[in-house]
């Protein structure tokens, strides 16, 4: 997930060239491609975002012809309870962003800088939570840590621990805990990527100047990582701001409900209010934009630090003492047990149980229960739909992103850079908001209720990731490789196919795997666009979470198996292709 690293656009030497029309300067194919790509990106990305903003002012969010009103906007932006909720939601998201980043930085530093045994296993344990939907984890924790009835609470009770020492997952700290556990892998990928880019000699120089490890970390490493630490906080914050599934499940006892839940409820429950949903969505987008603006301000002077380690890059690892290695490993195991292994085990046990008893004996565990739960026609067709989308959506999104990156980075056509900005806008828009916009925009078209509509929605939120990853890949390819092809008589567009695409194959592969996982796990857009005729695994699990937790867990297990098997298959496919070439 390299999406967050290069927030600052690269300086473009030729963009300020004297503007004039030159015959033959750009090929007609390029211009056609530019127009087509603009149309696609406007329809898929800008369309829903603009519609949400407009719908916030509409009498009827689905029919803009019905007239406009300021009611919803006034309610959202000026009334005390809503503003209070806004402040709470921002605080909630920031706490999650900060905690995830702090934990992830510690984990990433030990991975990148310490020469530990079993580094790959450690990384798998740290990243494991990435593969499970957060609400499935939440479902597991409901069984484990509900006051009075939870498995852990019963065990603690039996050894005589007072109730105030027992965990309560149905609370705001419970939500923060589940979400932080889920987002640490995101932060980890961002921070470890940046840390790998920092020359370890910078730290060695500080150590040789007589400064200790702690001082070096605080005064050398952290400042060098400032940009990625901030982007980790910001983007996890944006993700958390749009996260509604965990607060809905863990907020049953009347705990705090963030604005994302307001949007979800006004889209779905009996108190449906689409205009309110749009107005709150707009507010969430504004918050994200302000966040991005502040992020940009904070990094205005930090760009000079980004060019660290261009040549002669060193990645020395420190061999820690035995005791230190043991401590690091124990910490990792404790962390991954709490955040990943325990909820995973709970999920599997719940999936195999007839009845969610607080003891294993009372649960009547059997594999056939799990089998029966996942072989219903609905779940099977959901699995088929999900797998189909998980293959089609990355393919389409990557194709669009290659066009976007080519136009902006290589053909350098006018407006192509703006195209990149529009295509990456969803990065600053919570998924639920994109879902709401797509639903409102497309509900009256014949596409509504089809798998294609869900596919379109998922492509629109995937393009941004694909553009980031493919863009990073293309930046690493020296332009002279394509110029050489042109001078051999091959047009620029054909060169993309014969030279550029084969060379960015690793980026394409990692984008494909990432989008495969994200598409299978995606809930925010899927839940909004999916209907009873087009079930999806994530939506099925979500629907069961309201009624039968063990069935939700069973679908969660199936989802996890599909994700893991699919990732392995995809890596094999891309790996085989690479060997062949």
């Amino acid at each position: 997930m390299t999406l967050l690293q290069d927030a600052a656009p690269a300086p473009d030497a030729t963009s300020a060239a004297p503007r004039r029309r030159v015959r033959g300067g750009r090929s007609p194919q390029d211009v056609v491609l530019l127009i087509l790509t603009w149309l696609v990106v406007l329809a898929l990305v800008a369309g829903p975002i603009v519609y949400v903003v407009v719908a916030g002012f509409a009498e009827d969010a689905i029919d803009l012809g019905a007239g406009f009103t300021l009611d919803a906007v006034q309610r959202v932006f000026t009334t005390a309870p809503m503003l209070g909720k806004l402040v709470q939601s921002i605080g909630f998201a920031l706490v999650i962003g900060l905690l995830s980043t702090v934990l992830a930085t510690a984990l990433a530093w030990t991975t990148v800088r310490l020469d530990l045994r079993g580094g790959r296993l450690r990384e798998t344990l740290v990243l494991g939570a990435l593969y499970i939907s957060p609400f499935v984890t939440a479902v597991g924790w409901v069984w484990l840590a509900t006051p009075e009835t939870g498995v852990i609470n019963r065990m603690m009770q039996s050894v005589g621990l007072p109730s105030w020492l027992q965990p309560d997952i149905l609370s705001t700290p419970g939500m923060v805990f589940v979400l932080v556990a889920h987002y640490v892998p995101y932060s980890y990928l961002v921070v470890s990527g940046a840390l790998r880019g920092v020359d370890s000699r910078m730290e060695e120089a500080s150590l040789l100047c007589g400064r200790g490890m702690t001082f070096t970390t605080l005064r050398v490493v952290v400042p060098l990582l400032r940009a990625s630490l901030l982007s980790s906080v910001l983007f996890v914050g944006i993700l958390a701001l749009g996260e509604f599934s965990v607060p809905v499940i863990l907020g049953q006892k009347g705990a705090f409900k963030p604005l994302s839940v307001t949007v979800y409820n006004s889209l779905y429950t009996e108190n449906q209010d689409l205009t309110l949903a749009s107005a709150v969505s707009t507010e969430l987008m504004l918050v994200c934009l302000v966040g991005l603006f502040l992020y940009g301000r904070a990094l205005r002077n930090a760009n000079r630090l980004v060019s660290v380690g261009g040549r002669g890059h060193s990645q020395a690892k420190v061999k820690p003492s035995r005791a230190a290695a043991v401590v690091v490993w124990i910490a990792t195991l404790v962390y991954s047990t709490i955040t990943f292994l325990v909820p995973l085990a709970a999920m599997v046990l719940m999936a195999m149980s007839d009845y969610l008893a607080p003891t294993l004996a009372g649960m009547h565990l059997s594999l056939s229960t799990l089998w029966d739960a996942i072989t219903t026609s609905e779940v099977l067709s959901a699995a088929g739909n999900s797998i189909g989308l998980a293959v089609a959506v990355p393919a389409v999104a990557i194709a669009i992103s290659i066009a976007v990156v080519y136009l902006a980075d290589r053909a350098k056509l006018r407006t192509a850079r703006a195209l990149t900005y529009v295509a990456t806008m969803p990065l600053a828009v919570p998924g639920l908001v994109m879902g709401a916009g797509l639903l409102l925009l497309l509900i009256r078209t014949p596409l509504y209720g089809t798998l294609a509509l869900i596919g379109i929605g998922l492509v629109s939120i995937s393009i941004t990731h694909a553009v980031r990853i493919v863009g990073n890949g293309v930046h690493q390819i020296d332009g002279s490789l394509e110029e050489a092809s042109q001078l051999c008589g091959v047009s620029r567009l054909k060169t993309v196919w014969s030279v550029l695409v084969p060379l960015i194959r690793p980026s394409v592969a990692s984008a494909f795997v990432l989008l495969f996982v994200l598409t299978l796990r995606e809930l925010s857009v899927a839940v909004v666009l999916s209907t009873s005729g087009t079930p999806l695994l994530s939506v099925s699990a979500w629907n069961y979470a309201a009624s039968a937790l063990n069935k939700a867990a069973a679908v969660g297990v199936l989802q996890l198996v599909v994700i893991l098997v699919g990732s392995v298959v995809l890596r094999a496919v891309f790996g085989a292709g690479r060997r062949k070439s």
Partner: protein
Amino acid sequence: MTSIGYEERNGVPVAQEDQAPAPVLEVRDLVAHYGTTPVVKGVDLTIGEGEFVTLLGPSGCGKTTTLRCVAGLHQVTGGTISISGRTVADAATHVRPERRSVNMVFQSFALWPHMTVFGNVAYGLKAQHLPRAEITARVEEMLDLVGLAGYGPRPVSSLSGGQQQRVVLARGLVTRPTLLLLDEPLSNLDTELRTRMRTEIHALQRRLNLTMLYVTHDRAEALSLSDKVVVLRDGIAQQVGPPDELYDRPVNRFVAEALGPVNVLPAEVVEGGSRPAARLTTVDGGPVLPIAAQSAGSPPVVGEPIELLVRPESLVLHPGDGAHDGIDVEVTLVEYLGNRTEFTCRSGAETIKIELARRPGGVEAGDRLVAGWHAGAESAGAAWQRTETR
């Protein structure tokens, strides 16, 4: 070696013998910008068939940009570029690189790592949709020519730097371009290999009568390879001509220094006309030396302050016994370099460098000697420039 048919060139008709042939490349008043910064400011350049022309200058002088304009990789702001009589670029026209019938050897090599040696060389031929058998034959012929016969199936990443350089050359030549552009092709090689590749490129160019435009900042490459050298400074051509002319009769200090070390000595014109001469003003009553009549701009005017551009090897050292005319100097440093010896001397406030092929016995720092004119150098007269006001 196999013969290469350079008569038919990518379908571009070669001019008839009875007409005056259009030059392969004609650049007129070329202007190019990077962003809003002008980097090429009016360069003129003509290359005839089979000519080897070098653009020489320090980094940032606009030589690579000029080359990229010719290749079609950079859009010109003004002026015209014609290839074989066809205008390929001016302020309103831009023929795309793939349609210019030129090819290029990149400084970074730019070999495609996902293809084999054969794949890299065959690439341009496949684009011309030639029959497979012809492609194979031509690629093998070309690999043979650059000394890589049998290397076709290897991945390019497995080759050494010198071998990669040969693949790049083969890729550039196999499409039979009207003009081959070379952008500092040897700068990525170590010293020994650079010398060897330089010789090979030279031999290949002469043997196949190739037309080449070569960019470098290495004066040895420029002097040894070129029929014609263009010295560029800040996007403006300072002097164009054969290497020996530029070396012996540089129009200014910049050109002189671009091609080799030079002493810049202040002087005053004492005689104009057909046999001009100038008196060195390094010391009171300095010697009078003949200066070159041919120089840029107007002829020298008596009394005018000028600067003489004197190569270190144009001077010799005589004993300071009064029997020799010349500049009285004091030797401050003697550096023995094997095939030659360099003397750093002082004359008044000026430092003068003198280079001798042999080390004269007994000369040491502190000796007072006379620096005289090398026989032969005197008759041509010293190169000079009008005093720069900085």
